[in-house]
Structure formats: C-alpha cells, structure tokens
C-alpha cells in the first residue's frame, strides 16, 4: 500500500466523481457534499461500467449502467443487480491535493 497524489481537490465537483490512474489501478474519487471518498472505478457488477460516471447523493454512488448503489464510506453494495461490494481506499487531503492509499 502506498499513498499516491491523484488530483487537486478542485478537480472533483460536489456531487460528482472522477477517475484517476493510481498505482496501476483505476480509482474513482467522489465528492459528496464536500467529503471525499475513493473506490475502484469499475462497478463490481462487471459490465464495464464506471462508477466515476455515476450519481452521488446521500453518501452513496449509483452506477450509471444498472443503478446498483454502493455506500461510499464502506463500499457495501446497497441495491441489486450488483451483489458484491466495491473496494474502497484510504483517502487524505493535504494542501489541497487528494492522496489515495493504494
């Protein structure tokens, strides 16, 4: 595990997510009412969907493809059709930069 600087905080608008390459993975970083979270970008449902293109509200991200929802903090799957949790990563903000622990 290593901390990697992926983006500026300002790069991630409130209520949205963005995808970044970090340590050989594609990681999605979400801004939910000012709080930031990081998960794998690929939806565990396995249909080539990108969670970073999903919809963020109330601490959840909704996959744009089949509307599976995941808790942003824990990665737990909340609604079908996905039936596996999404991996979450440690995240810290330092001096306006977002670091993710991959």
């Amino acid at each position: 595990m290593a901390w990697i600087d992926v983006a500026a905080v300002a790069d991630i608008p409130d209520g949205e997510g963005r995808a970044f390459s970090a340590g050989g993975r594609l990681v999605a970083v979400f801004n939910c009412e000012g709080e930031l979270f990081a998960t794998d970008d690929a939806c565990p449902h396995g249909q080539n969907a990108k969670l970073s293109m999903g919809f963020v509200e109330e601490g959840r991200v909704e996959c744009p493809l089949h509307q599976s929802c995941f808790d942003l903090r824990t990665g737990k799957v909340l609604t079908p059709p996905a039936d596996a949790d999404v991996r979450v990563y440690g995240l810290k903000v330092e001096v306006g930069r977002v670091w993710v622990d991959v």
Partner: protein
Amino acid sequence: MNDMTTPAIERVWPELGGGRVPAWIYSDETLFERELERFHHGRCWSYVGLECEVPTPGSYRRSFVGVKPVLITRDEAGEIHVLENRCSHRGAPVCWRQRGKGKKDLVCPYHEWTFSLSGELQGVPFLRGTRPHPGMPRDFNKAEHGLRRLKSTVRGGVIWASYALDAPDFETYAGPGVLRALDRTFPGRPLRLLGYSRQTIPANWKLYFENSRDPYHATLLHSFFSTFGLYRADAEFDIQPLDNGHETIRSFFASTAADNRSEVTDELKSIKEGFALEDMGVVTPFDEFGDGVISSLQLFPSVMVQQHANTLAIRNILPKSVRETELSWTYYGYADDDEEMHRRRMKQGNLVGPSGYVSLEDSEVLAQLQPVADNYPDSVQVIEMGGREIGPTTTAITETLLRAFYAFYRREMGL
C-alpha cells in the same frame, strides 16, 4: 371456462350432429388466432417444464405457452417463476440460451436492461442520462416495467403456467379425475430427467390432440401393438371423456400378454405370424405402480401425459402455426430408480417418440392429412365409432373422446 359465447369466426359448423367435424378447423388462420387467444394465451393452464430442469437457485430454462416464448427461473430463495421471455423495453428476447445455471439476473443483450430472476426491472443503462444530457423521463417507474409474469404453480414436480392471472386454480382446472391420474405418475417423488426428443409435424395442433385421444387407431395403424400384445383391440379399457377438454384413458395389462392371443388380434395381424422380437425387454412391462395399469391423460390444451409400461413421458403439444405443431417429448423416471429400472425405461423408450414403434406412424399420417384438410376445407370428418353419444366406455374401439372434445371446443369457441 370462458364466459364468451360469441362465435370465434364467421363460419358455420355443419349441423349433422355431434359426430361430424368440418375440415376448415384445421386450416382457418383466423380461427387459429382465436384459439390461441381463448385457450393457450387465455384462462387455460399449460405445461412449461419440470422442477428438476431448474434444480438450483439461479437456474433457468426457456419454454413456451402457446406460441409465446417464456422463461422458467428459480430465484435465490428457491421460488419458481414463469416470465415472458420478452424485454419490456423493445421486445427483444431477454434470454438467448436454452437453459443454464448460476444466473444472478437477466440482462437483455440489446440495451442491457437488467431484471431480477423474478422479473423485476432493476437496471436501465443511463437511466439518469449522461451529464448534461437527460436520461429517461422523471416519471419513469421501474416497477411498471418488469417482465410479464405468468401465473404458475408446481405440483408433483411439474410446473404449470397460465397467462390469466385470474385463471381458476390448477386443481379446479384439472378436475379430480385428471388430478388423480397426474398424481399417480407425479406423486411428489423426486423425478429424474432422462432427456428430450422433439418432432415438428406439419399439421394443425388439434390433429395431434385428437390422435392421442383416439384409441381406435392404435392397433390398426401401429401394427407393432397387436403383434406383441402390448395394447390389444379387445383389451379392457377405462375411458373417461370429460367436458372440460381433458381426458383419461387406462388399460390393464397382463404380464403374459405377449402369449395371449385372441380372435381379434389374429384377425388383424395374420400376416405377421412368425415375427417375434429377439429382445422382449422392449415389450415387457414391470408393474411399478402396483396396479396393472397403463395410463394416459390429456390436460387441455398443452399435454398428453403417458405411461406406456415403464416409459414415462410428457408430450408437450405446441402450436407453431395453423398447420405446424411441435411435439416435444420430455422423458423422466424417478430419482430412486435402480439401474435395472433405468435400463428398462431406456429400452421401452423405443416404443414412443419420433422413432417410436407405436408412435412413428402418427406423425406420418398427420403430415399427410393436413394438405388434404387444407385443400378440402368444407369436407366433413365422421367421428361416430361407438355411436353418436358421449360417455365413458370400456373399449378402445370408440371415438367418444373425439366427440367429447368437439362438444367442448364448439361450446368454448361459440361454434
């Protein structure tokens, strides 16, 4: 069954009594559509499959109710569902494989609309659009766009389905006589699926329905029967015509039937003297049900269920067009069959099916009959063997079951 008595089509049944059937019923396209509407896609129950064909949660299998493709699923909780295999989006078939296991959901290949195994719409790609473009309208409600669910029930390991959510319950629909016959070979013992044979017969579905409730032809067309005493013209029968489109037929076999000849059998097959099978296992029944009975039943409109000695099969009669029918045979045994019984079932399977010693002539005759019916639509068939009345009988030389069927049919179709 139906409250409708308005005539199905503008045709007049020849008024020559209950013993006459007009040939246009086998070729009239409009009538065919009405039949599907009132029967197969209406308040009737149809066979769709066996529980052992979808044994585990996540397993599925395609089937038909009438001409409509359906899908049988078993969900994570183990519940069976029968769904229309038609995406609620644009009508593509949701499931393209015949059968499978381990499915978590149903994803339509066209736009990936995703449904649960019980048919609920779960996922619509880009439901909310892609920023900044809108997706589906705000009032789009997934709950209104699931896969159409048929009413379904399971009895004795057999799955039945109906398009009418207000259809009478299956037990009421089948009636006590048919239920008794069904429960005899589907008593709730775990079944063992043995396999499938199918044949496409270029004939109207009613011709097959008639054929499999016509014991009169059995010993005459299928000379194999009388030669080996498996089903004799002079044997004792218990034939029960019903007024609901169903029927039951039972006959009683003797273990030495093969040696038991009579005037009738001799008269029929005097030219076959000296012809004996080398392996009599095909025609030697074992009385596994302990009642000495060979039985069959028809549950209108979709099945004839047979027990020919120890070969057990469901004949699913599937109309494909006014002049084409798929006859789909599902063979089964019981999970606790020993190797000897299994082998017996394999051997006796030669009697029936698309190559059956006592069934292959049926499809041959019907394939030839249909073009004649097509070309002589106003000709009239005579079904008066045994008289002109309808009633139970103990002889196979009867057409009472055909008269009963057409009395039912005329009533339901307003003809």
